[in-house]
C-alpha cells in the first residue's frame, strides 16, 4: 500500500497497463508534457512518443481516433481535459462509439477508454468546466461509465476500464485529484459493475457517486451522532449499475437518499430512484429522496457554487424529512 493522490493513482494505472500491454496507447491535449491535471507526467519518457500522442485541440479527432484505433486492434486511452468538452465530440461518443458494435452486428469490438475531469468541487471553474457529464452518457446505451471516489479506485477502476472489451468513459472528479488515500501496490484492478458498501447501517441508505460519496460519509458521521445509523454505498459505476446492492440495502434500512452532484432536473439519481421506488416499493417506509445540484448552470463565485451544490447538511435534512 502506498499513500497516493487521485492524480498519481491515475498515472499509476496508466503505467501499470501500458507496461502490461503494448496495445495500450494514450492520446490527448498536452498529455506528453504531463497533462493539465498532472495525471500523465513521465509516461512519454517511459513509453515513447508513438504511444503517448500529443494532439491538437481537436476533441472529435481525439475520440474518433481512439475509436478507429480500437477497431484496428489497439486499446487506446483518450483524455478529454474537462468532461464538459464531451459536448464538442458527442457525436463520436454517443453516435459512433456507443453504437457501432451493435449497428455492425457485433463485427467490431471497441476496447477503449475516454477519461477526463468531471464535476465542480468548489474549485471555481464555472459553468463550462464543472459539469457532471456522466448523466449525459447514461442517456446513451452502449457506453460503460465509471466514476471513482478514492485514489484506490482511481487506479483500480481505470485499470479495469482499460481491460474491458467495451468502451468505457471514466469520469474523474476534479475535486478528488488532490485527495490522498491508500492504493494497493502492484497489479490493482477493479472490475466494473460492483458497488462498494463503505459502511453498514440500519436506518437509512445513502448512495453517492464520486465526490458525493464523501458527502454521504460526512452526513453519516453526523447522523451517527444523532443516533441514526446510515449505510453508505459508493455506486462506482453507472453502467453497469449495481441496482441489486441498493435494493438489498433498502430491504434492511427501508429508506434511501441518493446524492448526485449534477442538476436535479435529470440525472442518474432519477433513474436509480425510479427503479428502487418500483422494485423496492414494499420495502420503502418513506419516499426515495434525491439530494442533487440545483438546476442552474454552475456559477463561478465560491459562495454561489456552494449554494447550488449538494452538501452534508442537505443530506441530513433529507434524512430528517423521512422520519
Amino acid at each position, binding site marked *: 500500500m502506498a499513500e497516493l493522490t487521485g492524480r498519481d493513482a491515475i498515472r499509476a494505472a496508466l503505467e501499470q497497463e501500458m507496461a502490461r500491454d503494448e496495445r495500450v*496507447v494514450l492520446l490527448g491535449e498536452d498529455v506528453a508534457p504531463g497533462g493539465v491535471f498532472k495525471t500523465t507526467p513521465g509516461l512519454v519518457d517511459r513509453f515513447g512518443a*508513438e504511444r503517448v*500522442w500529443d*494532439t*491538437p485541440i*481537436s*476533441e*472529435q*479527432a*481525439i*475520440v*474518433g*481516433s*481512439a*475509436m*478507429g*484505433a*480500437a*477497431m*484496428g*486492434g*489497439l486499446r*487506446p486511452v483518450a483524455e478529454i481535459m474537462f468532461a464538459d468538452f464531451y459536448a464538442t465530440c458527442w*457525436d*463520436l461518443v454517443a*453516435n*459512433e462509439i456507443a453504437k*457501432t*458494435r*451493435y*449497428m*455492425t*452486428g*457485433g*463485427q*467490431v*469490438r471497441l*476496447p477503449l477508454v475516454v477519461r477526463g475531469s468531471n464535476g465542480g468541487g468548489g474549485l471555481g471553474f464555472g459553468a463550462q468546466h464543472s459539469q457532471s457529464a456522466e448523466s449525459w452518457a447514461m442517456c446513451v*446505451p*452502449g457506453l460503460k461509465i465509471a466514476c471513482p471516489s478514492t485514489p484506490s479506485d482511481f487506479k483500480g477502476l481505470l485499470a479495469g476500464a482499460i481491460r*474491458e*472489451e*467495451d468502451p468505457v468513459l471514466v469520469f474523474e472528479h476534479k475535486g478528488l485529484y488532490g485527495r490522498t488515500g491508500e492504493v494497493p501496490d502492484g497489479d490493482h484492478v477493479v472490475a466494473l*459493475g460492483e458497488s462498494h458498501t463503505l459502511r453498514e447501517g440500519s436506518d437509512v441508505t445513502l448512495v453517492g457517486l464520486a465526490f458525493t460519496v464523501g458527502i454521504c460519509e460526512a452526513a453519516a458521521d453526523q447522523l451517527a451522532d444523532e443516533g441514526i445509523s446510515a449505510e453508505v454505498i459508493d455506486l462506482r459505476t453507472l*453502467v*453497469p*449499475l*449495481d*441496482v*441489486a*446492492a441498493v435494493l438489498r440495502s433498502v430491504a434492511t434500512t427501508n429508506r434511501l437518499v441518493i446524492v448526485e452532484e449534477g442538476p436535479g432536473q435529470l440525472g442518474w439519481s432519477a433513474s436509480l430512484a425510479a*427503479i428502487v421506488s418500483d422494485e423496492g416499493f414494499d420495502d420503502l417506509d418513506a419516499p426515495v429522496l434525491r439530494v442533487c445540484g440545483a438546476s442552474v448552470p454552475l456559477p463561478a463565485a465560491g459562495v454561489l457554487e456552494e449554494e447550488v451544490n449538494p452538501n452534508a447538511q442537505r443530506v441530513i435534512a433529507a434524512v430528517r424529512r423521512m422520519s
Partner: protein
Amino acid sequence: MADDSSPDRAGTLSPPPDAADLELYRSMLLARRMAEKTRQLWTDGGVHGPGHLSDGHEAISVGVAACLREGDATIGTYRGHAHALARGADPEAVLRELLGREGGVCDAKGGSMHITSVEHGYFGSYAIVGAHLPIACGLAWAQRLKGEGNVTVCFFGDGATNIGAFHEAVNLAAVWQLPLIFCCENNLYMEYTPITAVTPVRHPAADRASAYGLDRVVVDGNDVEAVRDVIAERVQRARKGDGPSIVEAMTYRLRGHSLADPAAYRPEAEVQEWARKEPVGRYRTVLSERDVPAEELDGVEREVSELVDEVAERALAAPSPQGETAMTDVWADGGSAWRS
C-alpha cells in the same frame, strides 16, 4: 500502378492486364446491378427505411479497391453499398441486410446506411456526415503502429467538407503523417443543395488541401483507371510513410440523394450531360476500343445480372431475424445488460 499494390482479394491471382480490366468492369457492374436491384426491392416495398445508392459513382469505389490489399482498410458513408462490395462483401448478405433478414451482413441491425464488412477490410458506413473521418485516423494510426505498411482509404462526400470533423481529421492526419487517403466523391450536391452554393472554393476538398500542407489532387471520378492510378500513387506514398493525401474525385449521382428523392432540383441539361459520362457504359466503350470482344463484355454483364438476381431471390426467401436479436451485441460479451 505501383508495384506493391496488389489487386483486391475479390480479384484472382495476378491476372494479366486485360483480365484486370475486365475485373474492374465486372466490379463496377456488380455495384450497378446491386443498386438497380435495391431500387426495385424498395419500389416493391421490401426495403424499408432510407437508402442511398451510388449509381454513377462506381468508378471510385472500384478504382480505389483495385489499389488495396488485405490489411488495408476502407471506411465510408451511408452511401456505402458499392464500397462494401468493391472490397468483396457478400452481395447476398448485403441484400439480406437491406431487406432486414436473418443473415444480413450486420444482423439486420444496421440497415442500408450502415453496411459493414470488417472481414473484407470495410470498416463500415457511417450515417452522420463527417464522423468517420476521425475514425479513419485511428485505423491508420493502428496500421502505422503495426508497421506492416497498410493504409486506410476514407470515402466521403463533397458536403462533408464543410463539417468540423473533416477539418480536425485531415489536420490530425497531416500532423501525424498517417497512412491515410481521404477520398472525396464530389457529386456536386449535398442533398438538394449544390455544393458550390455553400462552399467558397470551387473544389471543396482539393482546394482545402493546402490548409493542411497537402497537395491539390482532383481526378475524373467517372474514369475508373484514372481513379486507380491516382490512388495507387497516393497509396504507395502512404505505405512508405510519406503521409496522407486528399483526392477529390468528380462524379455525379445518376438518381436522387436517397431512394425517396426524385431529384427534381437538378437541371435537366446537367443530368443529361453526366448521364453521357457515367462510368460503367463509358468503360465498356474503352474496353471495346481495346478490342475486348463484345461477347466477352456481354458475358460479364450476364454473369453479374444472374448473380444479383439469384442472391436477391435467396435474400427474399430468408426469414426475418428473431426478435431477441434486438437485445444482443451491445457489449462484447454478446449481451445488453446495463444493470444488475
